[in-house]
């Protein structure tokens, strides 16, 4: 049983942790999605049979994405600590955690969005270029708008994955709910805090999926 009074645990531990988790998830998902969308567009456009096939650009990007995707997150986060220090000035805290989160999140969403964009009717793209649309116009006016419902579902998926990663990042000094579960719960043998954190995470995942599904249904 917890030896701390409940309101103290909630106000001093859980709520700040929830806040920093939300911060990490929202900022890294948004930035990952933006970078991922750009990467996905480049992948789809330069792919063989794409609007502007370019073997070198496609293969290079393809391999970089694969490399970043093959690291276990915790190893990558440790491995790029020098880079994190260079950008943020420290390797501790939620701002520092954004660097590895985006390093993993961006290639992950790039692959998801690549699938979304590839699923757009090929003939529609041919038709649009046959009206004299530039490549940029095809991407902006047809490809992305048609892929939006699928992109929304994939953003939902990415958000939940990144939420999982922030919990892992908690183990190496990122703060947030993961850190609470590990330091206050696991290392302190406090089952109430540990399982309490798990329940909060479960509720968060349900909430994210619910919102994602709702938006998807509206946009479809």
């Amino acid at each position, binding site marked *: 049983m917890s030896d701390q009074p409940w309101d103290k645990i909630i106000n001093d531990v859980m709520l700040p942790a929830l806040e920093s988790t939300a911060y990490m998830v929202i900022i890294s998902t948004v930035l990952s999605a933006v970078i991922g969308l750009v990467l996905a567009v480049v992948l789809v456009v330069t792919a063989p049979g794409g609007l502007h096939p370019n073997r070198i650009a496609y293969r290079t990007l393809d391999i970089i994405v694969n490399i970043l995707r093959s690291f276990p997150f915790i190893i990558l986060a440790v491995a790029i600590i020098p880079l994190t220090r260079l950008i943020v000035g420290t390797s501790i805290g939620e701002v520092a955690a954004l660097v590895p989160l985006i390093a993993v999140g961006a290639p992950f969403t790039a692959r998801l969005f690549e699938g979304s964009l590839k699923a757009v*009717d090929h*003939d*529609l793209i*041919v*038709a*649009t*270029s*046959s*009206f*004299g*649309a*530039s490549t940029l*116009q095809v991407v902006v*006016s*047809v490809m992305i*708008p*048609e892929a*939006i*419902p699928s992109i929304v579902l994939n953003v939902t998926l990415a958000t939940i994955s990144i939420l999982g990663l922030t919990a892992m990042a908690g183990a190496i000094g990122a703060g947030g709910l993961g850190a609470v579960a590990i330091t206050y719960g696991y290392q302190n043998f406090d089952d109430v805090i540990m399982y309490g954190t798990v329940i909060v995470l479960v509720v968060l995942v349900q909430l994210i999926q619910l919102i994602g599904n709702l938006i998807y249904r509206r*946009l*479809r």
Partner: protein
Amino acid sequence: MIEIRDLRKSYGGTPVLKGVDLTIHDGEIHGIIGLSGAGKSTLLKCLNGMEPYDSGSVKVEGTEVSERGTGRQARAFKRDIGLIFQGFSLMQRKTVYDNIALPMRLWHYSKDEIDGKVRRYAKIVGLDDKLDSRPRELSGGQQQRVAIARALTLDPKTILCDEATSALDPKTTASILTLLREINEQSGIAVILVTHQMEVVKRICQNVSVLEDGRITASGSVQDVFVHHASRLGALLENREQLETLPHTGANIRISYGPDHVYDTFLSTMTRQTGVPFSLIWATTDKYRDDVLGSVIINIADSDTESIRNYLNEHHVIWEEL
């Protein structure tokens, strides 16, 4: 006008187009028929500038496609040909209005001009009451009508239909073809129909070309090609099994009738005058656009072949031995 001369194109050493010659005149309805793998889609891509070609010439409205260069000017050339696909290719999330407006928005037409044209073309294709619907609320035929309206908005000289009716039922196919013919007759836009459906060619084409193994093997008016290249068309289209059921003994002769002779009493006259008995294997009359053409296959004994051949030649009948 579209002029294709000795067009050649290969993919990785495999020739797909082996010297295609084809002319599409202003304002005609021209069918291009061929089985899958004959090179139809490659030909279309070369025509639209989507694929470079190895040699030969493709001129659309007098301009060589390979010399259009790049950038905005090259994109402007593409507007001369409007494309229509088998799968309709509409934006699923946009309304009929937005789908028809798409090409004009790409070229930054004014709002008023877009509105006027969308409404005009929606009326022409009979969808002026569906402007706020989404494609998935429409039938296949209606979706294809949206695609046709969309293709018309940039005032193309030619509309190119790539298997445009292959996904539709016969009745809807007929209504789409009627619409294309109306558009052709009212605005003089040439229509190219790439298809494997004989029905399409028969119903509206004035001219037809047969694309076989990377070459045009027959080309001309529908009557001409039907009457003079009947077996070629038959083998390509629906009559494969008809050739397979021919008797193995005696001689099989196909006699084709042009529109002026379809109702003649030729066969009975021939029997009476030559005294040669025949068995009727297969016969059909078909409506081609506005004309009726006929074709029969008869089987005669080997010993009678000579006299029948002479009789057919003397009477200037179009025939061939199968």
